[in-house]
């Protein structure tokens, strides 16, 4: 493990909603304020701030992080922004980690925020600009194309059905019914509901997709000597990894997320993990679409290629199963404010490992969890492993 030991000592978040009255800075403040309150720390005890927020186009403000900075406690503090699309939520925690592991800072406040509702006619429209301006945009693409193309490649290669995949949406939306901040928690949703939902870009149907959301999440990270003073249950960062695949997405094997495997291997090596399927007790993979959870479980080496769906079908991925997957309810259930969603998963592990996850609590005193986020043009993998 490179550098000093680092722990997460506090966490807070907003509710995730379709459209908030709060401005971006107010959302950042709500989360940051709760995070500090949760560990009884004050802003003057924070040495540096990491702010994560994805495309400026959503909040509609250039230099978005400077705009958010007052609400994130960044006034007068060394501040940095991380931005790797949806991968930001976990990447921001990694940035917080190296700020402290390096010895430069003892405490860091990590805040991730997104206010997608400002973007009209629909937040989806901002994603249009992810396509190559000369060779792809003239075809009139939309974001759903990329996911649908990847989903079809994955399903075709392994002979998976929509039913196999829809079970992920059901598990996550049901889990989210027990999350106090959830936008789309539904304790009664069934596979039939998903299969009967409107086709958007076949094979993608409406209930396969996470919502657009406004929200923010914040965590407080500290060096060991501070962490032990602040809490009797610090959650340690045991491994981190991140990797970026080629921008030429149409040249890639879309049925397998190599970039996730590369990030995971770095994290496992750092944590000294040789058998991830045995040593990881809770997984929070990124689930913007239901099939992505399966895709990512395979990239994380937690399931054989093409076989992740079996974990769901056999109940292994349930909260009381052998390897709970997305006990939070994930993006599909809690919501998807782009940069904040990944940090929501990190916060979930924090609460789970401390036994504070309430109705979502995974039984058996889990000691180690992994959170993974993903973003950009289907190309970045960010992984963090936490332990207590």
């Amino acid at each position, binding site marked *: 493990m490179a550098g000093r030991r680092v722990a997460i000592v506090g966490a807070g978040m907003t509710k995730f909603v379709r*459209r908030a009255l*709060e401005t971006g800075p107010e959302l950042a*403040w709500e989360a940051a*304020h709760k995070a500090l309150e949760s560990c009884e720390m004050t*802003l003057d005890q924070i040495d540096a701030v990491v702010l994560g927020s994805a495309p400026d186009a959503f909040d*509609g403000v250039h230099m978005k992080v400077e705009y958010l900075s007052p609400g994130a*406690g960044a006034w007068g503090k060394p501040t940095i922004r991380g931005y790797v699309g949806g991968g930001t939520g976990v990447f921001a925690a990694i940035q917080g980690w190296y700020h402290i592991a390096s010895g430069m800072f003892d405490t860091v406040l990590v805040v991730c925020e997104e206010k997608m*509702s400002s973007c009209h006619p629909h937040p989806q429209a901002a994603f249009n600009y992810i396509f190559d301006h000369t060779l792809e945009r003239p075809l009139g693409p939309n974001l759903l194309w990329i996911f649908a193309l990847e989903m079809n490649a994955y399903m075709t290669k392994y002979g998976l059905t929509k039913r196999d995949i829809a079970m992920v949406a059901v598990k996550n939306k049901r889990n989210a019914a027990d999350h106090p901040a959830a936008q789309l928690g539904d304790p009664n949703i069934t596979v039939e509901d998903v299969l009967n939902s409107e086709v958007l870009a076949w094979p993608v149907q409406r209930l396969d997709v996470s919502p657009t959301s406004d929200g923010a999440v914040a965590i407080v990270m500290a060096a060991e000597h501070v962490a032990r003073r602040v809490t009797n249950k610090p959650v340690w960062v045991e491994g981190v990894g991140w990797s970026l695949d080629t921008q030429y997405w149409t040249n890639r094997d879309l049925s397998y997320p190599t970039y996730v495997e590369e990030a995971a291997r770095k994290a496992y090596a750092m944590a000294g993990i040789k058998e991830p399927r045995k040593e990881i007790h809770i997984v929070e993979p990124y689930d913007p679409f239901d099939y992505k959870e399966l895709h990512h479980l395979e990239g994380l080496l937690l399931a054989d290629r093409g076989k992740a769906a079996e974990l769901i079908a056999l109940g292994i991925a349930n909260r009381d199963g052998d390897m709970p997957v997305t006990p939070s309810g994930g993006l599909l259930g809690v919501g998807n404010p782009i940069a904040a969603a990944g940090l929501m998963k990190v916060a979930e592990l924090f609460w789970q490992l401390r036994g504070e996850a309430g109705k979502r609590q995974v039984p058996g005193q889990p000691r180690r969890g992994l959170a993974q986020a993903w973003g950009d043009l289907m190309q970045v993998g960010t992984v963090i492993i936490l332990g207590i």
Partner: protein
Amino acid sequence: MALIERILHARDARAWHGTIRLEGVYTAGVAGERWLRGLQAGKIYGTRCPRCQYTYVPARRFCERCLGGLDEGAWVEVGPQGTLLSWTRVYLAPDGSRLAHPRTLGLIRLDGADALFIHDLLDEGTPWAVGMRVEAVFRPAPERVGSLLDLQGFRPIR
């Protein structure tokens, strides 16, 4: 080894044209909503942080200095008079063209506030000076909609 071929005439350099067309629809926020309704009612409010002894205008939901919440008890009326701390006269529009009438802007510390406020300075021909006392001019009540422009601007105190 050179990767780039030199293009001698700009017309030979191919460019692909496109537009990015989105519209931002911005809410005022929890504090902003209330502050703008205050303007609509002909009042300028601030919020005061008791820990930092600092009053923000426009009113804010939280103090950026200590990250404390600024709740109900933090709302105070400020102005409508204040002191001009700086001013400028603008001759160009955002697109770089010349304005038909130059526009004068002021940076004002409203009485009771610590944060500074920017708005238009009215009364052309006034010899503006730092330190001058100014007062807010509201639009007539029926014209106010809950906008920063419910304030017309500031003029020297008469």
